[in-house]
């Protein structure tokens, strides 16, 4: 098995819970006119230690987004005054690049495409999975901080060399197919965080609907075998009903 010393590489990002990167509290602007949904999401943010500022209408949200800095913005689409797509466009036009996640009752492919075309970075449909919402917010924040463009990502015993497209565990080369590498890379970019089936389907396979076949589970199963074969400790954690998380593997 090939071995590699990551210390020789440049632009290495060390990820991990101890690194303080993944659990940094987020400052979130939340625009939602439905009070019950707003209360549920606020509770969720509070539970994860994040700061959430809630605005009930679009004009107030635009004002606040222009005056204060946020890590991420969650936008509803069907608001009383200005719709979420217009808010997104106006924010982008005025040069505000804060990651925007649209969370809407309009969840069809065409609705998602509209949202992303307007300038949003992510799109979730209601009913939402609370864990997934938080995972996506953190992924958005990480992406905007530019962490995913590094040459090498190291997490626990794993190394992901993005340019060379190679993977290592405990300095031993892992033989992955191109798609398995994409999956592994996605886990490494979201190291320490949960990724959901929907995130994987959307970002790895470009599918924004849920296939009737358990394709994600099976592909994760194959990757898991390759990551764990010959090593004593598990590499991927299944979070029941929600998604997966890569482990440090130590």
């Amino acid at each position, binding site marked *: 098995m090939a071995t590699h010393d990551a210390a020789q590489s440049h632009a290495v990002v060390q990820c991990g819970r101890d690194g303080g990167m993944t659990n940094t509290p987020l400052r979130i602007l939340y625009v939602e006119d*439905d009070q019950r*949904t707003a209360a549920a999401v606020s509770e969720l943010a509070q539970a994860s230690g994040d700061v959430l500022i809630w605005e009930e209408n679009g004009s107030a949200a635009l004002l606040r987004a222009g005056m204060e800095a946020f890590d991420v913005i969650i936008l509803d689409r069907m608001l009383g005054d200005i719709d979420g797509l217009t808010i997104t466009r106006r924010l982008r036009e005025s040069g505000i690049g804060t990651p925007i996640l649209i969370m809407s009752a309009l969840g069809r492919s065409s609705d998602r495409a509209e949202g992303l075309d307007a300038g949003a970075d992510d799109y979730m449909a*209601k009913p939402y999975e609370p864990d997934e919402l938080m995972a996506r917010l953190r992924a958005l924040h990480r992406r905007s901080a530019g962490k995913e463009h590094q040459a090498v990502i190291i997490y626990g015993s794993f190394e992901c060399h993005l340019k060379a497209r190679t993977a290592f565990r405990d300095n031993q080369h892992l033989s992955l197919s191109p*798609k398995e590498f994409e999956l592994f890379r996605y886990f490494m970019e979201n190291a320490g965080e949960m990724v959901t089936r929907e995130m994987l389907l959307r970002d790895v396979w*470009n599918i*924004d609907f849920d*296939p009737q*076949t358990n*394709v994600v589970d*099976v592909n994760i199963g194959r990757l898991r075998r390759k990551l764990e074969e010959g090593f004593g400790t598990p590499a991927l954690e299944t979070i029941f009903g929600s998604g997966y998380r890569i482990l440090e593997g130590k």
Partner: protein
Amino acid sequence: MTLEARRSIFSRLVLAAIGLSLALVLVLWFVTHQTVVTTLNEGAAKEVDVDIAGLVDIYATSGLDELRDRIADRVALTPAEGRTPHYLLANDAGERLAGDLTRWPALDPMVSEAGAIAIGEKSRGFARAVQLGPDLRLLVARRTDASAAVLRNIAIAFAIGGGMFVLLVALLGRLAALDLQRRIGRINLAFREPGKAVELIGVRGRDEIDELAGHSARALERQRGLMEAYKETSEQLAHEMRTPLSHLDNRLLKALQAEPAPRVAERLVEARAEIKRLVQTLESLLDIASSKSRRGDKAGLLPVDLSAMVTSLCELYSGSAEETGHSLTWEIAPGVMIDGEERQLSRLVTNLLDNALKYVPPGGKIEVSVGPGPVLVVSDDGPGISPADRKKIFDRFYRGQGHSHDAHGSGLGLALARAIAERHGLQLTLEDCVSGSSFRLEG
């Protein structure tokens, strides 16, 4: 001429008008030419006949010598008006006795034959021959060269006048065609951009084209209104269903987080899955309606690498097929492109693959192929589809015999697949097979 100009009905109309006016000028010239020729020949014939009558009279009253003198006088005299006369008085052997012509032409004097003759080397004329007596015949002719000049002038006049006429027709035709082209072009543009229909082809009511424009604008407005109403209704429906379902799901999740008894937890998880299915059914129905409403509308479609997309999906499904004991194989021709919405086309293909994996028993074979055309075929060697089911297989909520209690299928997969195909102007059909089933998508 560009291809577009060749295809345009207006260019063809202008060309037809030019062709027709040219033909008209040619016909008019020909008729005029013939009429003039006939009239001139009749004039010459009349002069010849009058001259012959006079000479016959002279011969009858004064004899041969007087006739020869008179002929010599007339030959010597060049008339100020009319055609120059020519004569030949000869015996039956054709030997000249008087006159300026030297050779007897092929005209029979016994029947007073008349016709065109050559006069000298270059000239032409009209002549009549008569038998004056035994061994004496007379030929009287008139030169018709002057007629040729008249005819030439007529031809020149027609060439100039006709040319101007054709040019005028071409110019007027082009102007009329441009006006029509502009007006029809606006109607076409309105169909391409229905949002601007009224602005582009506002109703003026001047002629048939305005009437057509008016009908088009109203139809497009109605269509736009329907589309907006559909979008608004579907958005409200989604909002009014999804928001309360979201609250309900949240409550179920909270109940789950309170760590209930395993049996209760199981029920709660099932209830959440039901909510998810309900939302998916709603989405699929709206997607079907949306795709059907845009049937054959190619606006907004972009080139998609069908080969790459299907290969990626087959790779995604290969593990699941292996796990369920199916043999999934694919044969994809490289570089097959299609104009489409990639995510919608992905959905079509995954619905076909989901369908095959669901209904083909373990151990069965599933084959996927993509070829130029484009043609996509997903076939299997499963139990096939009964004749009773074949017609209804693409209907909404139809699950087929023996599958009506299948809790995993929404009964919308194939209906949605067909609606997506139609939205792309493609046909999705179930092919006749001896065994198994085969779905074919083609343009």
